[in-house]
């Protein structure tokens, strides 16, 4: 984020608002216990997804026909499902799908939403009008329905889910950034930058964008939580991740039928979804409190 910091010439420096830096973010985060717990969960999730092969070295799709529907024990920590697949291995590897979808979602919705929002807010006019109507149109579909239809069009799969959920949340960021840009472009530091002769691109990405980072970070965290929920929901409905790839939503659905036979293989994917979403929500909550200027002096 440091690279986004404003680089004004000395005579404009006086009026430049201080954009958010990573150091400032951490200083403020320290004050919130919720954010810290959230951050911890998110980091654990990321590490689990990265090192899934080391944490659970087995193949998540491997079926041990001799050990079907086992209860949790020494050999299978979280038991096995009706096909004899190790639940621990599947839950650990399932984190990869979840994190991949969450990151892909944020990458797409930010990558498209931010430039659109910046341009619409800065130039206004016809482009803004067209874009705002398009965003309104996208927002007139219930989120789940739109994501479902996009997944069906693109064909079920992990990447598809990420793309679908990413597209669905473009309007959220486009609107947020547009609203901030509308206010910020009238501020003195932008007028000064323009007077000094900065190009529009430089003003948009190095002057305006760094100053609307706070709401983007908060919404981004919360939308990653939504992305996890959507991936699990779509996979649960059979439209998302396809077998044999382990996905928490799909595993929960598949094992639901065998609930009484091996409850652990249904419960743990569900618990994993809950903890993961909880982590992002707590981080988002804590970030909101620590980044909100109104709450800073409490």
């Amino acid at each position, binding site marked *: 984020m440091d690279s986004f910091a404003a680089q004004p010439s000395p005579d404009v420096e006086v009026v430049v608002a201080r954009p958010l830096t990573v150091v400032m973010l951490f200083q403020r985060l320290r004050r919130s216990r919720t954010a810290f717990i959230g951050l911890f969960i998110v980091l654990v999730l990321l590490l689990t997804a990265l090192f899934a092969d080391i944490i659970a070295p087995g193949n998540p799709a491997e079926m041990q026909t001799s050990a079907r529907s086992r209860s949790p024990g020494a050999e299978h920590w979280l038991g096995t499902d009706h096909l004899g697949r190790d639940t621990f291995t599947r839950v650990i590897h399932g984190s990869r799908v979840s994190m991949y979808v969450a990151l892909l979602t944020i990458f797409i919705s930010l990558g498209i939403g931010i430039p659109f929002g910046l341009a619409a807010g800065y130039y206004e006019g016809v482009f803004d009008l067209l874009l705002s109507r398009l965003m309104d*149109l996208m927002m007139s579909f219930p989120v789940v329905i739109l994501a479902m*239809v*996009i997944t069906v069009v693109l064909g079920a799969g992990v990447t598809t889910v990420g793309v679908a959920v990413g597209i669905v949340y473009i309007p959220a960021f486009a609107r947020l950034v547009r609203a901030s840009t509308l206010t910020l472009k009238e501020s003195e530091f932008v007028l000064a930058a323009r007077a000094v002769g900065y190009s529009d691109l430089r003003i948009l990405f190095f002057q305006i964008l760094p100053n609307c980072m706070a709401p983007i970070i908060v919404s981004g965290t919360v939308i990653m939580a939504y992305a996890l*929920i959507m991936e699990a929901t779509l996979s649960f409905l059979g439209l998302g991740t396809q077998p044999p790839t382990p996905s928490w*939503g799909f595993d929960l659905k598949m094992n639901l039928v065998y609930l009484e036979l091996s409850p652990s293989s249904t419960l743990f994917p*569900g618990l994993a979804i809950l903890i993961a979403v909880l982590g992002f929500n707590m981080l988002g909550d804590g970030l909101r409190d620590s980044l909100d200027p109104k709450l800073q002096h409490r």
Partner: protein
Amino acid sequence: MGPYIVKRVLLLFPTVFGVSVVIFVMMRLVPGDPITTMLGLEYRPELATQLKREVGLDQPLIVQYGKWAARLLTGDWGKSVASGIQVRQEILRKLPVTLELIAFAMTFAITISVPAGIISAVWPNSMKDYGLMSVAMLGISMPEFLSGVVLMLVFALQLGWLPAAGYSPPSENLLAHLKFMVLPAVALGFPRAAILARLVRASMLEVIGEDYVKTARAKGLSEWVVILRHAFSNAIIPPLSWMGLQIGYLVGGAVVVEIVFLIPGIATFGMDGIFARDYPRVQGFVMVITIVFVALNLLVDVLYALLDPRIRFGAQKA
């Protein structure tokens, strides 16, 4: 006020038109077509061509859209390609079930979240507050299908108090019908109750610090009269307007809950259509959901404008 409502209603038309184009085009982009899916192993090219001609799928897309849209306006939503059932008839039969589910979920959400929010705000940072807000945080982090599965596990399979899944029409046995609706309504309402409780708390905390609340206390009114009559009646407006907007989103959530609990609402109808590539069925389903969603949002906006003059005047200026 008049011009504001007229403007908002007029804006509905381009939205519904846009939605109809989007959904029509997207369904055509789905790999596979209804005839091929329907014929399955019986597929023969000449038979498929003939069937396509019969239902009009051989015509150019723009013609197909024109015909569909024109018929839509006259109230004919087409027939399901696979079953030949009239889509409108089927949707109108199933829509009340979905709306009932949403109404129950809303009632549940408001009933538990408002007291929870007030208690948290009256004793902020107490054990009660932490407890309630932790439950709320859990609720926010739970997808509808997960809360559905948990409820099913506890109240149907373990305790045996309520049926796990299924549906019984109210005309046959009202009590049985209500029993089937309890768990789905709670599953759908719980995540909303969680958010609403947090909003009520935040809104109450803000209002409790206001001067007029202090004045009410200074007059010697009892604490609960101050809280409920003076603070609450003002604090409830923002959370309720948010709840109104959530009705629309509940439509999406209802789809998931219906599938989990095997309730024959419009969701199951639409999902089957998606898998069968049954264009008229999916188009009808998405159109209805979107129209309900947009109309409810409009209704809430108008009601909110009635309550808050700033919105009306802002709209007139623009």
